[in-house]
């Protein structure tokens, strides 16, 4: 079956990348100039303690052996122990993975909700005043630092108007939606211009296609043509743009999480860097890369679902 073959092939492609990614995550502790254990202990440990920690981290073993241990552990979900929290890294990360993914999906949904109508209007009224206004809006949105927008939204809607909570995650799905609204809007403002831009130009491309004229000759309404024929084709390049820029989106999310003191992976990373908690940093590096790779995989699969031509090689 062509579809199955495609999926398996696509997953196999990830293996060498995963190897490279694990190498980067593994090496990061070894590239620290000087003694990483010293630095982790902030120079306040006796030689005995240093030796114990070093042994605990396996840093006294030869490098290849350390790598095999690292990768073996990672495969079964063991990422070592946090120096600061004294808890297993996989547990610390696991606790925060859910909220972070929730934030990511929520902001992506909001970004699409903002971007879709704007892009459609801009494409249908291309080169008119409204199109130019939307472009300017996008340029401004793109230039706004996410942490700054977050701060302003927090002050305005959180402190002055008191409409939304300014931190935390909440306990139920509805509370999540409510707590995460401001951070998600912040990320969406950062992401939406990219989406508007790519969707607009993709739509303009599609609208000149022969099959759109055929659809018009069939007597379909403008609305049906845009929704059923144009958008579906235009989604293909947009999915690609989103996937290519997913790294930027996650980077923006790290800062926004920090601004809103959100219990996610990003704020964990910033804190771990502050404490030089290398096992946590290593684990997060790996987890972030895996998230990016999975999102890219999903993008490719949805690409395939939209357009079967990719199956033809």
């Amino acid at each position, binding site marked *: 079956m062509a579809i199955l073959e495609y999926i398996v092939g696509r997953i196999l492609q990830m293996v060498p990348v995963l190897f490279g990614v694990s190498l980067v995550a593994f090496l990061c502790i070894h590239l620290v100039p000087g003694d990483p254990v010293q630095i982790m202990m902030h120079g306040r440990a006796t030689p005995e303690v240093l030796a114990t920690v070093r042994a605990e981290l396996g840093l006294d073993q030869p490098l290849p052996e350390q790598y095999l241990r690292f990768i073996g552990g990672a495969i079964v979900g063991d990422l070592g122990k946090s120096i600061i929290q004294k808890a297993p890294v996989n547990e610390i990360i696991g606790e925060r993975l859910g909220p972070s993914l929730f934030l990511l999906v929520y902001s992506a949904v909001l970004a699409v909700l903002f971007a879709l109508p704007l892009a459609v209007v801009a494409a249908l009224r291309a080169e008119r005043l409204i199109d130019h206004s939307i472009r300017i809006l996008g340029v401004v949105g793109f230039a706004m630092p996410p942490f700054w927008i977050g*701060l302003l939204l927090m002050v305005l809607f959180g402190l002055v108007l008191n409409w939304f909570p300014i931190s935390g995650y909440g306990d139920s799905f509805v509370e999540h939606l409510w707590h995460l609204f401001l951070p998600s809007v912040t990320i969406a403002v950062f992401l939406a211009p990219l989406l508007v831009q790519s969707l607009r130009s993709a739509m303009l491309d599609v609208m000149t296609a022969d099959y759109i004229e055929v659809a018009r000759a069939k007597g379909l309404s403008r609305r049906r043509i845009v929704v059923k024929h144009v958008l579906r084709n235009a989604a293909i390049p947009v999915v690609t743009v989103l996937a290519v820029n997913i790294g*930027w989106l996650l980077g923006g999310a*790290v800062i926004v999480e920090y601004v809103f003191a959100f219990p996610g992976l990003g704020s964990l990373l910033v804190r771990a860097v502050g404490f030089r908690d290398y096992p946590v940093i290593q684990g997060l590096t790996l987890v972030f890369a895996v998230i*990016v790779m999975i999102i890219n995989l999903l993008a490719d699969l949805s690409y395939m679902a939209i357009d079967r031509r990719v199956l033809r090689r």
Partner: protein
Amino acid sequence: MTAAVRAELARWPASLKVGSASFALIVLTGLFAPWLTAYDPYTQDLANFLQPPSWQHPFGTDQVGRDVFTRVLYGIRIDLQIGFLTTYVPMSYGLLLGALAGYLGGWFDTVLMRLLDVAVAFPFLVLIIVIIAILGPGVHTIYIAVFILAWTMYARLARSEMLVERGKDYVLAARTLGYPTSRVIFRHAMPNVINSSIVFSMADFVLNILLVSGLSFLGLGVEAPLPEWGAMIAEGRDFIFDAWWIATLPGLAIVLTGVSLSLIGDGLAHRLGQRQRSFL
């Protein structure tokens, strides 16, 4: 000469004109900052702390009485310098490596592609932060981290452009004439490969300013007394409820700079006949 300049200007779209003019203004303001303000960006004036905007202090004063306007002006120098270097240094060798890989193919291309695959598997900011965790915070680390990582985007772009150019007739013609490979690459193909990177670099410039200010905001970048915009926003954060101006106005400076650069990118895309608009 002037006629040529005028003819060139006539071909500039409005966005390019507006963007270049406002960017030039920002650069000049940064250069002449000492003449444009009576204050020093570092001198504290504890008697006049948290003053709201007024004629004396158009952007108000911060928690230790420094003039925010002055600090924003001096911030131009810091943010533009870092933004410029973190954009164009990696662009220079990224472009070179990508174009070579695209033209030559073979093992060089394979190795480069595998490197790029691994690099894009990480969120850019996360890798930068990891490098900061290794080398310690500060401007120098930012330079090193960006120089290690940011070339990959240009390499990817240049490689794919070169793959297209390589198959075109003019390149084949140059090759049949027996020109040395280096000449074919640099004299013939490169001018066509470079345009997309130039357009992208404007968006990258904006993103790099956001990156530097973001890292400084996180306390991982430019350090305390320096008037870097992100660092100023971080300082103003604790007073935002009582003194909105400290954090808000440096942010506006970032937006203004970013908008100018994006407009230039948008205009350049038109002028250079690139299909792509300024940001990817």
